[in-house]
């Protein structure tokens, strides 16, 4: 079995809203796969269908196999092989760190002898060793997140599912979590996550699938997607008045202009051309940099709010 997840033509409708429209993708074993998209793109819905928290539409016919099993008919096995980190914190507020993990070790049917050892191991791995007797209320947002990840890893799952794992966390915690996820992936874990942070997708995903309004827009390795769909560099100008200072004579064919609400971007493969395009503008008023996943994301899902 090469693929841990294989989705073909998966749809999900809530009343009149089509949240996921005929989505197809595969997640190979020991890879990290990211679903990328703005809020309301259908990422979480897709994730929930994988572990049967949400059931896909019966019609049109589709197929969704996780470890070769259909979540609709074999939810328990799939959930036993997966660990889930939901978007919202759902720890037991009344219990402390250790007790929270003990409760879940029972839900996973772990043997008495293996529980304590595994919990101590995971608390150390997530750098929460000193917090074992601390109440949940006294934990910071980052600690709660790490605890939920530890909870999802209790039974040594083969697939880790994370819904926006680092939303709202400070940079230190984000980097710590990325390090841990990379380490787990190296050890053979398959990871499926959603995010709207381009940086996150770039840092840890082998493959990203950019979705918008329930549909797949593109899929591939982050760096490859950027290289194949975008120029290498971008010149960003803040404020429209900056345009009047530009050296229009240098506006040549190799440069593409993209107008945002208050930012104008020129894309090109030659940074020198872009810099000279800025003309007489002062240093603080323009910015030339390499294009990144965020540019690609904004270009494919649109510059304006869509809610």
């Amino acid at each position, binding site marked *: 079995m090469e693929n841990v997840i294989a989705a073909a033509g998966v749809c999900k409708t809530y009343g009149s809203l089509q949240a996921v429209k005929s989505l197809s993708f595969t997640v190979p074993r020991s890879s990290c796969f990211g679903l990328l998209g703005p809020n309301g793109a259908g990422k979480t819905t897709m994730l929930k269908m994988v572990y049967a928290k949400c059931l896909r539409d019966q019609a049109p016919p589709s197929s969704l196999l996780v470890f070769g099993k259909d979540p609709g008919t074999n939810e328990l096995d799939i959930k036993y092989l997966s660990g*889930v980190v939901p978007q919202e914190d759902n720890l037991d507020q009344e219990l402390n760190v250790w007790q929270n993990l003990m409760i*879940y070790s029972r839900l996973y049917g772990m043997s008495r002898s293996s529980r304590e050892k595994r919990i101590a191991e995971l608390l150390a791995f997530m750098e929460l060793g000193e917090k074992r007797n601390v109440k949940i209320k006294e934990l910071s947002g980052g600690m709660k997140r790490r605890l939920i990840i530890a909870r999802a890893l209790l039974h040594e799952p083969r697939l880790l599912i994370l819904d926006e794992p680092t939303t709202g966390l400070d940079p230190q915690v984000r980097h710590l979590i990325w390090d841990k996820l990379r380490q787990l992936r190296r050890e053979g874990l398959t990871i499926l996550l959603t995010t709207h942070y381009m940086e996150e997708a770039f840092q840890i995903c082998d493959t990203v699938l950019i979705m918008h309004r329930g549909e797949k827009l593109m899929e591939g390795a982050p760096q490859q997607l950027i290289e194949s769909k975008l120029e290498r560099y971008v010149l960003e100008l803040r404020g429209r008045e900056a345009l009047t200072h530009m050296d229009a004579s240098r506006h040549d064919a190799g440069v593409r202009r993209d107008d945002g609400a208050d930012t104008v971007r020129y894309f090109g493969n030659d940074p020198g051309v872009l810099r000279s395009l800025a003309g007489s503008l002062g240093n603080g008023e323009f910015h030339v940099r390499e294009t990144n996943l965020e540019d690609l994301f904004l270009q494919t899902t649109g510059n304006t709010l869509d809610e």
Partner: protein
Amino acid sequence: MSSELLHPPLRRRVMSVWFRHYRVYVKSLVSNGLPPFLEPLIFLAGIGLGMGKYVTSMENLPYIVFLATGLPITAAMFTAAFECTFGTFIRLEFDKIYDGMLAAPISVNNLLIGEILWAGSKGLFFSLAVVCVEAVFGVVPMPLALLSGIVGFLTGTMFATISLFITSLVSTINQFNFYFTGFLSPMFFFSGVVFPLDNLPPIIRPVAEVFPLTHSVRMVRLLDRGRLTGQVGIDLLFIAGFTVLAGLFAIRRLKRKLIQ
């Protein structure tokens, strides 16, 4: 790879849900475990010191003894009702506890059956707590009154299913007020706890027969006197049937809230 070998067996899945509730409950043992003992004290003092002087006997029993037989059962009813309305609603909507548990190898059926069994266990504990206090005052026949624990468990599971069904209907937590005022309070007064049903007008009597609590109370009254009659079997059948039916409806409706 056979599916039986992968995930934990049914009994362990249901019991792990039960254990989660147990663990959270005993975490605040004083505030959770003491009131069930205090409540009957207050009740008996109020009746014994006050009302008992005016109402001396009922069904050939001192009034306080008549009342004491039913109280363990209403305690079971109320604790199960609170657990599976406010408790369940908070776990479902505010704390998102079920979302976490359902990500583990637990099905919605396992989860809700664990929930119902937990409410039944609380019913057992609460009825026995009341019996303990009553025994100190010598107002219940011991050791027969210990059988109230069994009826308390059955009453707890029965009211857990009704309450879960109500929880599947409400959209805000305040709507439970209708259930408590409109359903449970009348049940307390018209199920034979505070006065015998024979005293009700003939037109209303059949209504009391439909009240689930009526059957629990009649059962406990017979058991307390050591009378294992056919009526006990009929009441048991009613309770079992009611629990299964309400449970099926509740699970079916709550599934729609838990699995999108």
